[in-house]
C-alpha cells in the first residue's frame, strides 16, 4: 500500500499530527530567532530583513510540510534526475551566471535569483544515498564504486570552485564525503585521502586566488589587515566578547547598531546575537542547534533503509558543519569562508535548501516502513 493512498485517507490534519513535531518546532524556533536578530540588526525595525525572513520561514515551514507528504519512493526515483538537473543548472551558472561581488554564483531567472550550488548539497546527498542504497558491504569499498562516488562529488565541487566559491565547494565536498563515510567505505581510503590532502596543500595554495590566500593569511593573523580583510574577524570578536555574560540587550549592541560589523545580517549574524544576548543567550542558541541535530541523527539511526539512513544523517551532518564553520568563523577560529548560519542568517537559496533538507528528513522519518526497491 502506497503512502500516498494512506495520506489521502488520513487527510491533511492527521498527516500533520503524524509529523515528527519536535524537529519542526526546533526549526521554527531557529527561524524565529533569525527574525528577532534581523529586527535588531536593522536598529529595531522589521524592514528591510526581518519581515522578509519571517515570510521565508513561514514559507519554509510550509515547504517542510509539503515535502514531508511526498512518497519516499519518489525521492528514491528522483535522486539521479534531480542531481542531473542541478548539475545542469551549475553549468548554466557557468555560462549565464550573474557576477556578484567578484563571484559568479547566481542564476537570474528574472523573477528569482537562484544559487544552484546550494541545491547541489541536497541533490548530491540524495544521489549518493541512492548510489549506496542496497549495495552489499563487500562492494561498498570496491575501487570502481569509490571512483564513481568521488566523481559525483568532485564534478559539482570543481564547478562551484570555479565560480569561485571556496566555502560552498568545501561544504558540498564534506557533505558528499560524509555519505561515503557513513556508507561504510574502508577507513584506509579516508586515511589515504587525508594524507593526499595534506600533501596537496602546497599545490592548492599555488592555485588559490589572491583573495582566498589573503583570507587564510588574515585568519592566521587578523591584525595583518585590521581595516581590510581582518576587520571582519576583529570586529566580530569585539562584538561577541563585549556582550559579556548577559549581553547588551536587543538592539542595544554598539558594534551592531553603529555598523562596525559588516555582513551582520548574513554570515556574521551570530556576532550580533552574541553581543546583544550575551553568553547565556549564545549558549541557548548553541543548545537549540545541538538539539536539532540530535533529533536528526536519532531519526537517521531509526531508519530501516540505507537510502533514508544515509540521506538523513548526511543532511544533518551538512547542517551541523554549516553551524560549526559559521560559529568558528565569527569567533575567529576559522577563516572567513562565507558560510551562513542555518535558519538564522538572512538569505534565500541557502535557507530554502536547509528547509528542503528538513522536509526530506521528515518525509523519510514518517515512511520508515515504506517499501524501496532493493
Amino acid at each position: 500500500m502506497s503512502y500516498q493512498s494512506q495520506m489521502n485517507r488520513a487527510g491533511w490534519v492527521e498527516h500533520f499530527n503524524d509529523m515528527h513535531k519536535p524537529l519542526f518546532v526546533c526549526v521554527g524556533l531557529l527561524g524565529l530567532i533569525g527574525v528577532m536578530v534581523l529586527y535588531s540588526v536593522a536598529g529595531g525595525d522589521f524592514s528591510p530583513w526581518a519581515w522578509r525572513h519571517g515570510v521565508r520561514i513561514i514559507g519554509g515551514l510550509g515547504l517542510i510540510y509539503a515535502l514531508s507528504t511526498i512518497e519516499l519512493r519518489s525521492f528514491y526515483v528522483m535522486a539521479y534526475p534531480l542531481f542531473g538537473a542541478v548539475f545542469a543548472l551549475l553549468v548554466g551558472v557557468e555560462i549565464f551566471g550573474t557576477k556578484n561581488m567578484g563571484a559568479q554564483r547566481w542564476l537570474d531567472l528574472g523573477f528569482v535569483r537562484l544559487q544552484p550550488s546550494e541545491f547541489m548539497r541536497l541533490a548530491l546527498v540524495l544521489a549518493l544515498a541512492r548510489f549506496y542504497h542496497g549495495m552489499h558491504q563487500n562492494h561498498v569499498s570496491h575501487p570502481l564504486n569509490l571512483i564513481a562516488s568521488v566523481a559525483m562529488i568532485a564534478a559539482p565541487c570543481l564547478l562551484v570552485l570555479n565560480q569561485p566559491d571556496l566555502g560552498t565547494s568545501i561544504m558540498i565536498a564534506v557533505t558528499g564525503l560524509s555519505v561515503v563515510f557513513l556508507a561504510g567505505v574502508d577507513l584506509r581510503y579516508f586515511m589515504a585521502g587525508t594524507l593526499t590532502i595534506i600533501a596537496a596543500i602546497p599545490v592548492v595554495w599555488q592555485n588559490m586566488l589572491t583573495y582566498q590566500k589573503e583570507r587564510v593569511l588574515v585568519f592566521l593573523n587578523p591584525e595583518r589587515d585590521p581595516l581590510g580583510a581582518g576587520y571582519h574577524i576583529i570586529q566580530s570578536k569585539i562584538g561577541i566578547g563585549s556582550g559579556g555574560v548577559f549581553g547588551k540587550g536587543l538592539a542595544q549592541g554598539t558594534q551592531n547598531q553603529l555598523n562596525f560589523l559588516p555582513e551582520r545580517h548574513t554570515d556574521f549574524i551570530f556576532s550580533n546575537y552574541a553581543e546583544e544576548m550575551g553568553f547565556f543567550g549564545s549558549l541557548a542558541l548553541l543548545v537549540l542547534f545541538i538539539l536539532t541535530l540530535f533529533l536528526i541523527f536519532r531519526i537517521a539511526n531509526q531508519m530501516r533503509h540505507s537510502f533514508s539512513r544515509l540521506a538523513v544523517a548526511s543532511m544533518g551532518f551538512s547542517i551541523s558543519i554549516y553551524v560549526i564553520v559559521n560559529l568558528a568563523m565569527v569567533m575567529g577560529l576559522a577563516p572567513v569562508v562565507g558560510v551562513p548560519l542555518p535558519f538564522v542568517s538572512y538569505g534565500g537559496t541557502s535557507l530554502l535548501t536547509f528547509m528542503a533538507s528538513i522536509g526530506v528528513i521528515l518525509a523519510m522519518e514518517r515512511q520508515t516502513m515504506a517499501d524501496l526497491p532493493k
Partner: protein
Amino acid sequence: MSLFENESGLFSRRLFALGGMQVSLFALLAGRLQYLQISQSDSYATLAEANRVNISELSPARGLITDRDGALLADNDRKLLVELVPEQAKDLDNTLAELQEHLGLSNARVRELRRRIKRGPSFKAIPIAEDVDWDAFAAINLRLPFLPGVSPRIGEKRIYPEGEAVAHVVGYVGDKTAADLRRMGRIVGDTVGRSGVEREFELDLRGTAGVRHVEVNARGRTVRELETNPGQPGQSMALSIDVELQRLVSQRLAGHSGSAVVMDIETGELLAMASVPSFDPNDFSRGVDTRTWEKMLVAERKPLLNKAIRGQYSPGSTFKMLVALAALEAGLVSADDKVTCSGVYHFSGEMFHCWREEGHGPVNMLQAIERSCDTYFYDLALKVGINRIEAMARRFGFGAPTGINLTGEKSGTVPGRDWKRANYDTGWRSGETVITGIGQGYLLTTPLQLAVMTAALANGGKRVTPTLVRAQETTSPPEPLGLAPEHLEVVQQGMYRAVNKPDGTAYASSLLIDGQRMSGKTGTVQVRRISLTEREEGVIPNSELDWHLRDHALFVGYVPHNAPRYAICVVIEHGGGGGQVAAPMARDIMVALLRSQGQKPAADGQPQAMRSSTPGERS
C-alpha cells in the same frame, strides 16, 4: 533484506563517530564562547567602547586681558583654518595642489609644507592655512569627499585691539611647539603665550580643557553626543594699565627709541609701561614669517625688546639723589654745605667737567640737585665713598630685578670694590667713585628700577614691587628702606626745584594742575668720550652727531609734589638732553594723568612767558 541492513552496526558506529566529532567541535565552540564572553569580556568591552566613543578635547576659551577699567587689551575671535593629516591623504600631491589653488598658497609655502610633512609624524594634523577667507573655506568643505585627510575647522584666534601700544606688556600668543610641550607638559588648545602677560599668566589664562565624548559609527560619523564637560574657560584678568594713558605714552614717545613707565608709588601698579618702537602683536598671533622676525631682531632700535625692563642705561644725574642721601645719612655733610663749581673738577691729575662749562659757582645740595651740578656731586661722591654709594643703590633696588611679574627683566649693575675685583680683577680707583657720583661709569639701571627708586623717594622711603596686575592682595607690601624723613625732604625739595624753579634743569616742563606740581630730575647720559681738543673747540651738539653717539635723555619724577601718588621714568635712547627731550614727555604724560584723575586742569596754570624762558641745561 533492505529493512535490516544495519544489523552489522557499521552505520551506527560511523554515525556515532561523526556525532562524537561534532560534539567535540560544539564543545570547542562553547569553550570559545566562554573565553570571549566571560574571560576576555572586559577587554573586548573596552575595545567596543573605543570603537564606539570618540573622545575629543575641547580647548577652553582663553581668558581676556583688560586694562584697569575693563577696556579689552586681548580678545578672542574665531578664525577659519585648514589642516591636513598626511597619513589620511590618499594622493598627497593632488591634495596639496588643490589646496594651493583654493587657498592661494605660494610655491614657497607649499615647499615648506612638504618639508614639514616629511619631517613630522604622519598622523599629526599639519596646519595648512589660517585665517582662511569664507569663500575658500566653503569651497574646500564642498570638495571634502575628494580630499581625504583635509580638515577645515573653526579655531580661536587672539586679537589685540590696542596693537602696538601695549604690545610689550600684553605680549602675544603663538602656535604651540614641541618645546612648549616639553616645558609645560600637556597643553590644550593651539596656542601658548609667548611673551608679556600672555606668557607670564599662561596657566591662569589658559583654563582647563573640556572633554567631549561622542558616539561614532564605523565611518567615524557622530551619531550622538554622550557627555560633554565644557572645561573651565581661562580666567580673565585686569591689568594695572590705564589704556588711555598707555596710548598717550606710546604716542608721545613715537619716533624715538626708548621707554616710559608710570607707576603708583604706593601699590607698585604700573599705569603705563611703553617701549618704542613697538610691533603689532596681531602679526605674531597670526604667525609672523621668519624674515620679518629676523629683521625685527637685528633692527638697531630693537622693536621686540621691552626697554622698560630689559634696557640698561647709566642713570646719569637721576642717580644724584641717592648720593645725596648716602652723604646725609652718613652725617658727612649738611644740606647747606656749599661747593664752588668752576666748571671743572680736578682730582688726582684728572679733569672732571661739569656739564655747564662756565660752572655754577657756590652751590648747596638743593641747588646742586636743582641745577644738576656735576662738580658738587664729584666732590660729594669722594666724601661719601663708593661703599656707601653702592649700599644706597642696592637699598633702592639697583643691581637686582624689581620683581615685576614679567620674565626677562634685567638687573643692571651696581659697581663697587668687590664687583670690580670680581669682574676686572683690579682694585677700585677713586676716579671711578667720582663719575659714579653723577651716575655714569659702570652703573647700569633699567627704567623700571629708576621708577621704583623715584617711587621710594616720593613715598617716604619704601621700595614697592612693581606689578602689571590691578591692585590685588597678593602684592607684597612695600619694604621700608630706613631713610630719615628729613633727608628725603631735602631730596624732594631738590627735585621740586629742578622742575619748578627757573634755574632748574626741567623748568620748561613744569606743570600746574589744580595746585599740583611735578617734582623730578633730569639725566643726560654721555655715551661717547669727549676729547680734550673737542672741549677746547666746543663740544659738538647732539644734533650734529650720529644717532648712536648722541646722549641718552632721562627723566624721573612724581606728581603731585605735595602729596605724591605717581612716579614716572622716561628714558629716550640717544635722544639728547634729559631736560629738552625726556622731561617734556614726562610733563605731557603727567598732565594727562592728573587730568584723567578728575582734576580739572588749571586753565592757565603757568604763564606762557615762564615756559618759554628755558634755561640752558645739560646733565
